[in-house]
Structure formats: C-alpha cells, structure tokens
C-alpha cells in the first residue's frame, strides 16, 4: 500500500487560502474549526514563505500514543484517523501534536469542548465508507472513491502535494533540480523523522 503524505512546496505557495476554503466546504466543517490553515513565516520580510499545514499523518503519531482511550488508528494507506465515538475530548492529542492539528468544536472550557476533529486526509473515519453517518462525523471520504485530498487536488500553483510519499518526493525533487532551489519539505523531519534530500 501507499504511504500517504502531504508536502507543501513553500516556494510555490501564494497564500491564497483556497485549500483552507476547499477543506471547509468539502467536509462541511463546523464554524470555528479549521482542519487546514496557511501560516506565513517572516511576513513582510525578505524571504517570506507561506506553508499550508494540517495533520501530517505522522509516523508513530504522538496523538495516538498519548490518547487515553486509544481512539486513533492508522489505515493501510498510513493515514492517521480517529473514532469520535471513542474520543472523550480530553485534549491530550492537542498537547502532543507538533502541528496543532486537533481541533475542538467548543473552545475555552476543556470540560465541555466536545469530540476532537482533525484532517482525515479526505478518508472519513471508522464508519461505513461514504455513508451519511460518516459524512456527518468526519466529512467526505474521497480516498474511498479513488480521489486524493481536495486541498491538494485544487491547489492552483500545485504547491500542496498529496499522495504516496515516494511519488510526491520525486515530483518535488524534480522541481528543485529544474529551478535550482527549494526550501525543503516543511514538517517532514518532525512528522516522519526524514526529509527529502535535494
């Protein structure tokens, strides 16, 4: 099976936030929750870069390690998903996550913040694929339909890549080779303990 990953080519990202909007629309994500966001580093300074960031679907995911009810699981495509039926909304994954991916529908009081929500790599949850119940709880399941995550699919500059690790790494390497520069695969070292040698 494939090892699914995200890769944001920061030299291409133009901070249009279309990935953020597409994600919210595709999964009908509730108000106040952003499964994906675009962060601009060194804003307004020379060398400024924007990076689209969501759950990185880490290898040996910290969220899964600290979860007190073991609600996380890794799919055959190496996507980290969770069961909202099991989640107790304790916030531990929120403490452990290096990317700020876990979100809670009700902010402020952790006592009543509700079930955690995060990027599913457009592959739903533990419920039946493409069922109404799955859509309501986790959003669309594009992977089950043979499609890649929408954020990457509709990226206008193709800065955000989604797909098998080897394939997107090859695409990125070719780009770097051709244009002669590349600021690296942001978050890969933290998420996968590896980076793309260019």
């Amino acid at each position, binding site marked *: 099976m494939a090892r699914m990953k995200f890769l944001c080519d*920061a*030299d291409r990202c133009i901070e249009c936030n279309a990935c953020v909007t597409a994600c919210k629309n595709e999964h009908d994500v509730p108000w106040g929750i952003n499964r994906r966001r675009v962060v601009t580093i060194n804003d307004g300074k020379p060398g400024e870069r924007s990076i689209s960031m969501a759950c990185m679907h880490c290898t040996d995911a910290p969220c899964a390690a*600290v979860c007190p009810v073991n609600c996380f699981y890794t799919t055959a495509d190496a996507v980290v998903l969770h069961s909202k039926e099991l989640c107790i909304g304790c*916030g531990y994954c929120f*403490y452990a996550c*290096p*990317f*700020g991916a876990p979100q809670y529908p009700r902010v*402020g009081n952790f006592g009543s913040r509700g079930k955690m929500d995060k990027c599913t790599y457009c592959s739903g949850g533990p419920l039946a694929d493409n069922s109404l119940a799955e859509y309501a709880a986790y959003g669309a399941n594009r992977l089950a339909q043979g499609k890649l995550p929408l954020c990457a699919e509709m990226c206008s500059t193709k800065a955000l890549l989604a797909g098998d690790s080897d394939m997107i790494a090859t695409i990125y390497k070719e780009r770097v080779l051709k244009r002669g520069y590349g*600021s690296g695969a942001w978050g890969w070292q933290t998420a996968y303990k590896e980076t793309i040698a260019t």
Partner: protein
Amino acid sequence: MRSSLRSLVAPLAVAMALSLSAPAIAQQQQQQPSSVNPTASSVQERQLLEALRAGTPGTGTTLHGRITIPDTNASNLIQPQGQAWRSVHQGLMHWIAAIAILGMLAVLVLFYLVRGKIRILHGISGIRVLRFSAFERLVHWMVASCFIILGLSGLNVTLGKFLLPQLFGEGVFATFSQWAKYAHNYLAWPFMLGLAFMFLMWVAHNIPGRIDIDWIRRGGGIIGSDHPPARKFNAGQKGIFWAVIIGGGTLSLSGFYLLFPYYAGGVLGGQFWNIVHGVAGVLLIAVIFAHIYIGTIGMEGASEAMTTGEVDLNWAKEHHSLWVEEERVKASIHPQAPQPAE
C-alpha cells in the same frame, strides 16, 4: 612634473572605467535565471528549528507566523515540545505513578506485617469524647469522597488504557472514561470548596511547633510503642494536613489551567500544568493511602473519630494527651457542656 601627474591620472582613469562597467556586469548576471537562488535569503525550517532548540532569544517557543483565519492559536506552525511532553507523559509519568502508589502500598503492607494493628494499650474505657463536630466530618467526607473519584478517574485517564479496554472492551471503556472525565471536571469544584473549608477549620491546630520535633524524635508511636504527647493533631497528622493543603492546592491550580487552557498560555502551558497535575496527583494519592491505612486497619479506635465523631477516652489519652487536657479544662470552665457518660 607633468609626467608624474600623467602617471597618477592614468591608473585613476582605468579604475573609474572599471567601476562604471561593474554594475553592467552584475545586471547581466542577474538576468541569468540559472544563477538566481531565491531560497538563499528565504526562511528555512531547519534553521528555525535549530534556533528554537538552541533557545535563541527572540525566537519564542514555536515556529509561528501570521494567519488570516480568526483562530490566533493556529498561527503556530510547528511546536516540537509536543514530542517532549509525549515522552514524559508516556514514560516518566508512568514510573512516578507506579513507584509512588505501589511503593506506598508495599510499605504499608510491610508495616502492617511488622507492627500489626496499633491497639489501645489501656483497653476501651467506654467513655466517649467528641473529637470532630458534624461540620468537620461533613467537610472531611466531602473532600474525601471527591478525592477518591478524582483520583480514580485521574489514574484512569493516564493508566486505564493498559488494562481496562482488554477487560471490558474499547467501547465500554471509552464510555466509562467519558463519564469519568465529566466526574473529574465537575467534582473538582466541591473538592476545592472543601479544601478551603478544611484549611480554615484546622490551620490553627496544624502550626508546627517544638512539641512536634519531640514527637518525631520519639518515633511518634509509629516506631516503638511510645506515646509522645500531642495536641489535637500530632506531627504525623500535621504532615497529612499540609500534604493535602499543598498537594490539593497544586492540583487545584494546575487543574484550573487544564480546564481553561488558554489562561495558561496555550499548548505549552497545558503541557506544563498537565505534568504538574499528574505528579501532584499520584504523590497525594500515595500520602492518602497512608492516611487511610492509619485511620482504619492500622490503628484501633481511630476511624470512629471521623464516623461518629467520638473517640474512646483511653485512645484520646494515649494519642492526644494534651488535647484531652485542653478539652477537660474547657469542659470545667463551661460546666453546662454535656459531660460524657461515666
């Protein structure tokens, strides 16, 4: 003279000509795309992470930038401390809990086997003395019952997953943990209220004094069968009192920051207070084990103080001789106060 001037001007003219043509060469070079590297000046993740790791001033604690969505917490791009928190929470924390709780249980079992139940040396006199008023007992049991549920649900959220899902199934365990979390969050409030009352009621009796040094030096009746004099609370009980006040206070403060995470400065604050909460919790559980032991199976006549509120006169004389004297003086000053039946 003229020749020497010319010899000066000639190299100057050459130098000027060279300096004029230099920008033209540079411009030519810039027009060549293959030699341009926009990332030479661009922000690099590795450099930022290294600056974080080195604690370079001005870098803060996370890789963060600007976002255009309203959730300002989302401006953190990478916060590597999550990994450190994970290793403490999944490693060291389990060891602290195991050593504190199992260690205390082992010590108590060993102590019971060696020392046995501490008896009332002069037997039961049958004369009852009021030790704790109804209000004092109410506060004690409010804090105690809350603490038992808080302690169990707290242990469940850290250690429960290693045993309970295998026994009862993941679904049942998750539902139980959900209710345990609600209980933990809401029972924290009566616990804190009771803690405040406990402090006000008993702080005057728990100021350490010279008598406590003597009590500790004589083994407090715990080691050996000596019965050093004590007022309402002996040095051991004062220790329990301050452990509950300081430990409970720490748990209250850290728990407050966990309930309302953004008062503690976001994710990093949450990680810090979570560890403080966990360590304080297991240490206080261990202390309370010792408290329960000595109040029940460890000592004859002790549990009545917190159930009926009355203790046997001989028990009181042996363990709290000075307190009995104080009570006797009080009773003789106020003769209308009800006397214990002879």
